[in-house]
């Protein structure tokens, strides 16, 4: 799809508004702020569409613009909150790698756990799982190295697992079962 510089704003809204809102909501977790972010992003971006051709590039560009707008308006002076402190810590050790828990499949639990995730983890996880970006593309959007993004994703899934395991709605024995299975299965 190619966007005309002075083309149809309605088409732009129809194509991207919902996705932008999802990203915005999970960035700030406030529906009103998220809507303001989407509106500001689309209105600002509207003037600069002449140089953007492919639909994928449009979406990535809009997400980047929205993220910048978020940092500028919602979190002025608090940019480090979207930078993971673990970026420089290197990859997780084998013992720190989380295991899958059966209780993680429930959508409500996932949503609750997602809300409690630190912003840098939540952001990359959503960009990957929902928008389907690779670590290379994520690195360009969030302005980090691929290694840092990979580390954030790994830690995000670990944090998610811990959040879900700590959720009182989940049975505590669920944490134990896969570990036993792991010990029985052994390493290859």
């Amino acid at each position, binding site marked *: 799809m190619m966007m005309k510089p002075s083309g149809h704003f309605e088409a732009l809204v129809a194509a991207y508004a*919902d996705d932008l809102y*999802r990203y915005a909501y999970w960035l700030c977790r406030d529906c009103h702020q998220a809507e303001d972010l989407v509106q500001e992003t689309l209105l600002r971006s509207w003037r600069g569409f002449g140089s953007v051709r492919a639909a994928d590039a449009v979406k990535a560009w809009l997400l980047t613009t929205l993220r910048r707008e978020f940092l500028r308006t919602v979190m002025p002076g608090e940019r480090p909150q979207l930078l993971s402190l673990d970026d420089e810590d290197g990859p997780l050790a084998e013992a720190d790698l989380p295991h899958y*828990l059966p209780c*993680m499949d429930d*959508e409500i639990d996932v949503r609750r756990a*997602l809300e409690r995730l630190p912003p840098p983890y939540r952001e990359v996880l959503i960009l990957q799982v929902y928008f389907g970006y690779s670590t290379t593309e994520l690195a360009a959007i969030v302005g980090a190295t691929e290694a840092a993004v990979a580390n954030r994703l790994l830690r995000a*899934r670990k944090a998610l697992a811990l959040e879900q395991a700590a959720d009182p709605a989940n049975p505590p024995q669920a944490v134990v079962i*896969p570990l036993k299975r792991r010990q*029985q299965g052994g390493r*290859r």
Partner: protein
Amino acid sequence: MNCADARRAALIDPQRLPLEAREHIQACAACREEFGGWLRKDAALLQAVRSTQRDGLAERLVLAHRLQQRRRSFAFVAAAGLTAVGVGLVIRSLGNGQPLIGGELVAFANLPKSELPALTASRVEELRKARGIGADANSVGGSGVRIYTAKWCAICKQAKTYLNSHGIAFDESDIETEKGLQAYTDAGGGDGIPLLLVSNKRVVGFSEQAYDAVLRCPMSRRRADASG
């Protein structure tokens, strides 16, 4: 690749596993089961994000865009209007009360003149819009001097008396006639009468000093022609 490496790869991006990790997961029952679990968890994550919606978002965004466009249009028109007023003021100050429309500025301010009747003024406005301002401002006729007058205008009579008394040949247009009014409009008229055109000079109103200044060259030339 061992279980830990495969799991690490799966935790980073379950949808884009490296070939080695895929092979390991296919061969290892424990990893296969866990990997299937992570994929299901991602599916649950996807569903959780997808369920994040805002009713009426698109309508509000389109409305906001339209309002912004209207504000921009209004701002543009206002800016253009202010610019035009500014330019007009500059021109007026340069011309000492004489608008610069289709003719050279003549520096005589506030000469005695007759204002146009309201009906005539509105007709001039209509003609301006229809024909363009000052469309034929420099058309002064064969005599080189043209004056736009009305029969009821006492100042026009003074102007004509001046021209006659100085032996200046001139063409006259009565703005009370349709043709005369059109010519008056084309000449950039509208501020009052008499309007005198000499070559590319224009004088609105009448005073002997103004006419002396404007007609000096043509008069000299005429006198020289007459004597020659």
